[in-house]
């Protein structure tokens, strides 16, 4: 699987040494994104999903962070060997980012047109008038109404949904090979979230750009992603095609996350809850990090951390006793 990957990461570790102790934010993850694919990185806050993406892009301050990896290869290049200038060239041109909060991601004292122009001027070798034309076209492509007027407006004059569209237009502007979207619609209203997700999906399919989606919302994953990677406490606990995992999760944590999603179609008198909380990153439990919260856990789980093993050619799970429902699992419990 690693030969044709656009982005290949092996053995990524991120630790933050602090006065109070060492925080192991990411404990050795492997991931691969293929051209045109949408990979979702799912987990709760503090599981290391955002830190991983920032580390891959070289955006983590070192210090305080310590980043180690066997491989970070993007499009044939070893990203770890590049200097800051070369990295800056790749970010924005070949890898773009969409952040959660559009208001802080945009420059408040610059018109959105000029901010879009910058991408075309810097990465596409256009002159000013070409850039303006391309910017207006880019705004139109993401469904911004009257793009010529919007071009002159400032971020505060736009609604939240419009701002998020501007960020999407900006991310796609230089035709990157990979876009990393960190919680792109979490801050938006229900009806507006749907509009923006639809735009994002249409743009991604049209351009064939690979997308790395970072989110905690499994419903967004269901709508957008092809493959899923579930993280818990700095480790990958389950990975595979979205359709299979949402239907038959193999890891108890994935199952818990799925059951926690509030539903409209059933009537509950109680909400399903995973007991306890995410472990303190400075003081993680022994064995499987999830065992104190897992209803299936046995003695083995308290002692040894399970390895990530394959269930089927496409699926992997880190569990001593993967759930029966997961096809191919040699489960020991009912």
């Amino acid at each position, binding site marked *: 699987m690693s030969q044709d990957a656009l982005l290949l990461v092996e053995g990524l570790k991120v630790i933050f040494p602090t006065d109070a102790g060492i925080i192991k934010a990411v404990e050795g993850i492997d991931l691969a994104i293929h051209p045109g694919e949408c990979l979702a990185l799912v987990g*709760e*806050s503090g599981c290391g999903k955002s830190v991983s993406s920032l580390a891959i892009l070289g955006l983590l301050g070192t210090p305080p962070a310590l980043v180690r990896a066997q491989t970070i290869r993007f499009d044939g290049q070893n990203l770890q060997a590049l200097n800051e200038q070369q990295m800056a060239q790749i970010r924005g041109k070949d890898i773009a980012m969409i952040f959660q909060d559009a208001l802080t991601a945009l420059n408040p004292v610059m018109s959105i047109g000029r901010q879009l122009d910058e991408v075309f001027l810097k990465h596409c070798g256009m002159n000013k008038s070409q850039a303006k034309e391309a910017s207006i076209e880019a705004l139109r492509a993401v469904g911004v109404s009257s793009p010529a007027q919007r071009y002159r407006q400032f971020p505060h004059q736009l*609604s*939240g*949904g*419009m701002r998020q569209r501007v960020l999407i237009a900006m991310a796609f502007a230089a035709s990157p090979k990979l876009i990393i979207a960190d919680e792109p619609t979490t801050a938006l*209203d*229900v*009806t*507006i*979230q*749907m*509009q923006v*997700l*639809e735009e994002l999906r249409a743009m991604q399919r049209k351009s064939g750009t690979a997308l790395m989606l970072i989110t*905690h*919302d*499994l*419903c*967004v994953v*269901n*709508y957008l992603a092809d493959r899923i990677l579930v993280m818990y406490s700095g480790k990958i606990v389950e990975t595979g095609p979205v*359709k299979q995992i*949402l*239907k038959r999760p193999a890891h108890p944590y994935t199952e*818990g*996350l*799925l059951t*926690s*999603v*509030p*539903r*409209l*179609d059933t*009537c*509950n*008198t*109680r*909400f*399903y*809850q*995973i007991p306890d*909380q*995410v472990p303190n990153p400075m003081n993680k439990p022994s064995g499987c990090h999830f065992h104190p919260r897992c209803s299936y856990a046995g003695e083995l789980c308290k002692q040894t951390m399970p390895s990530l093993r394959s269930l089927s050619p496409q699926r992997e799970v880190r569990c001593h006793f993967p759930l029966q429902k997961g096809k191919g699992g040699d489960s020991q419990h009912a």
Partner: protein
Amino acid sequence: MLKVENLAISFPVKAGLFSKRRHIKAVRGVSLTIQKGQIFGLVGESGCGKSTLAQAVIGMQRPTQGQVFFKGDDLYALSTPAFRAARQNMQMVFQDPFSALNPRFDVQRIIAEPMHIRGGFSGEQMEGRVLELLNLVGLSPEDRHRYPSDFSGGQRQRIGIARAISLHPELLILDEPVSALDVSVHAQIMNLLMDLNEELGLTYLFISHNLADVKDISHSVGVMYLGSFMEYGPTAQVFAQPLHPYTHSLLAAVLTLDQQKEPVITRGDIPSPIEVPPGCSFASRCPLAQPKCQVETPVLLEYRPGQLAACHYPVI
């Protein structure tokens, strides 16, 4: 317990030195009643006026028009001491548990703060009450000497809830209490809120932008859009047979884990509350809009027992 009558709130906005003074009409004629022990779910998108309405209910925002009755008394006509007494009887839980707690206070001090302000409690009484509250919201007694930064989001929300109920209020206003929390913690806090409602007989005004949150917890629900109710009624009925096209589009836009169902997308943006369009405020985005909707403002009518909608062409 709580009755709101024809409430309207507007804020003046200054556009320029010589331009005409304009107003943001945040709430436009809202009426609602909540019985003792009931949970009322207030749903709407950002900017629809749900938080402004909550502020008016709790006495933080004097309405431009209309009244708020708390246990039969007009809140804004009360004398200062009577207002303070009523105000102690209703408490608020905020969305963001990170900014709602003073980072320099320990948990004991945070939870005892309302008792300090009210006065008349001995140190021992306060400590006893704090221990009781910690137990009630599922925190351990040792936690009282720790600081907010030592806790996760869900635990901080528990502290916020403990503080809110410390003076035995009868009405709790919950402004998006679970929106900032992780999925697994989300369910824990919802269950805690349901338990407190049952055990202590508390009344809630539960504000959320998420329909799925409100569905299982509330007895009745109000769907707000641009400052007024589009639909209002018993929760089960509103979710099973929504009358208003806006409620339909809200429900259709909810993403699910269902792999067959494609969500339906409502086009257009929410209009500005400064220039509320004439006629029905949802007409610009409504798939069923007719010429009449652009001209005439629909009023809330009872189409089914207890279920009201403000629409010329409700889905029956």
